[in-house]
């Protein structure tokens, strides 16, 4: 397989990861923390209404996880397509 074809495949796989991870990013913050906040607030987690907790705590934890998952996925992808350093 030629090189530019390889690069094309590497790039589209990268874009697929981005769409997946950014959808989660959107759901936990804009979804759970804002748009569905009122709905989620009827559930309590300890002393927290769930929607409030997502907005002030939960979303931030997920953000941190998302970046580390991305780092792991991309390091593997770089090796697979032999574009790592």
């Amino acid at each position: 397989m030629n090189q530019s074809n390889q690069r094309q495949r590497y790039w589209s796989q990268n874009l697929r990861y981005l769409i997946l991870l950014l959808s989660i990013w959107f759901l936990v913050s804009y979804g759970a923390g804002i748009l569905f906040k009122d709905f989620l607030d009827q559930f309590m987690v300890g002393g927290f209404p769930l929607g409030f907790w997502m907005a002030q705590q939960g979303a931030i934890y997920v953000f941190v996880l998302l970046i580390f998952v991305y780092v792991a996925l991309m390091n593997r992808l770089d090796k697979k397509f032999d574009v790592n350093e």
Partner: protein
Amino acid sequence: MTVQLWTYTLVGITFGIYIAIAIWSRAGSTKEFYVAGGGISPWANGLATAADWMSAASFISMAGLISFMGYDGSVYLMGWTGGYVLLALLLAPYLRKFGQFTVPDFVGERYYSNTARVVAVLCALLVSFTYVAGQMRGVGVVFSRFLEVDIDTGVIIGMIIVLFYAVLGGMKGITYTQVAQFCVLIFAFMVPAFFISIQMTGNPIPQLGMGSQLNDGSGTYLLERLNGLSQELGFANYTTGSKSRIDVFAITLALMVGTAGLPHVIVRFFTVKRVRDARKSAGIALLCIALLYTTAPAVAVFARINLIDTVSNQPYANMPEWFKNWETTGLLQFDDKNQDGTIQYTGDANNELTVDRDIMVLANPEIAELPAWVVALVAAGGLAAALSTAAGLLLVISSSISHDLIKKVFKPNISEKGELWSARAAATFAVVVAGYFGINPPGFVAAVVALAFGLAAASFFPAIILGIFYKKMNRQGAISGMIVGISLMLFYMLKFKFGVFDGGKEAVAGLQSAWWWGISPEGFGSVAMIVNFMVALTVNYFYPDPPKEVQELVEDIRIPRGAGAAHTH
């Protein structure tokens, strides 16, 4: 030891450390000055980015803001952390592979145009100067309260320290001092939070304490009690907030995208060796930031309950010493309207107490009666937060002037040594201007700092994203997008924040109902960003594709391999 003596000791020790680091890591070349030689480890860069990012606003103001805003304060929590996800996934790796020195560098090269570069320089200067003035002011406030010098002297002391290590060490000096400053500021923020969390709930972890039951045996949850107090006194319900959903959405988006577009943050990712290091250090940076950002809402709840318990319906004569101390700074004001000698603190017209939100974090340890050394620690932490961000911003200003304007536009054949000296001169100039604004703050600094994010979102973010993800994006599209985006943002800001077109500041409140789609000026950056994208793509359609070399450049930055080499050309 007294609070004052402790403060002198801790601030003295930390300043000594910063200066020692600056002398040890002097910059010898422009590459060391702009990007620390490009060899910083991901961990060091992650910690430095966190300190760079967390300013006086994060350390001193944010928990206080949330304390008064309740749920609405989530815009800062999500906005200022979620931006790092965008930064790590959409910008940092590619900009690192591109591997030059500044953000205008990328815009200039990618859009094969010095006009684009100059537009980017102007945006960078506008954003950075407004931001840095606020930091200097923060330094002044901490000095005036804890070291009892006046605010102006405080600003000048801060200027001399920053001047020393930013001018001498450039990015290299700044990076290692920021690592030290991160350790100081996070320790200073966490220690009082642990103490107060134990005091109020028995749980040492503030993130959990915030959702626990009060220690007084009543079995009431903290948030429940706070909602109750708020209702009783006529404030908005703490966990519900009062902003409209669309505005919360828009502000969060503007802050996230603005974060990802801030030049002093982006430039930190030029300092690591490889693309994978850039990705990893974004993760480490957010981890460090999250430590403070998940603690801040807990501090906000603790401080709010403590404040209400201490002052509400209590006789003025019985107020503790901290109350009087803050009154002398003018940040806490009591006006006994009904002359009964008791403090009525309410959400309606009968309110007699004005609390500046900036004092909540600084006064919190005193309100909770923590030991003297903890109070002093908070002062040292506030200074670390303000100084580290100020230094990062000054570097962006100096490199924009010496590298992007002098070297790339006006005097391309300047020698390496000449450029290094002009960078130092530009940094000195920037410190003096920042100090001037710190001493004579224009009334709108605080307002503009919040809007700096809108400006960054409306200008840089779309240009950089399109530059990376859309190979056929041409210069005409990108430049018109940036100009329309930032102008629209400026217009909205002048109209609805400063009332320029409707008779000045007094008119601002009356204009709220005229906000477009109910979106506040703070959130409008997200609309201006979308407009930027649309204009850029439309104009792009009518002009020819970028030259072949540029399209190859875009292909190249998408592939990690060779980032080390890219740095040397």
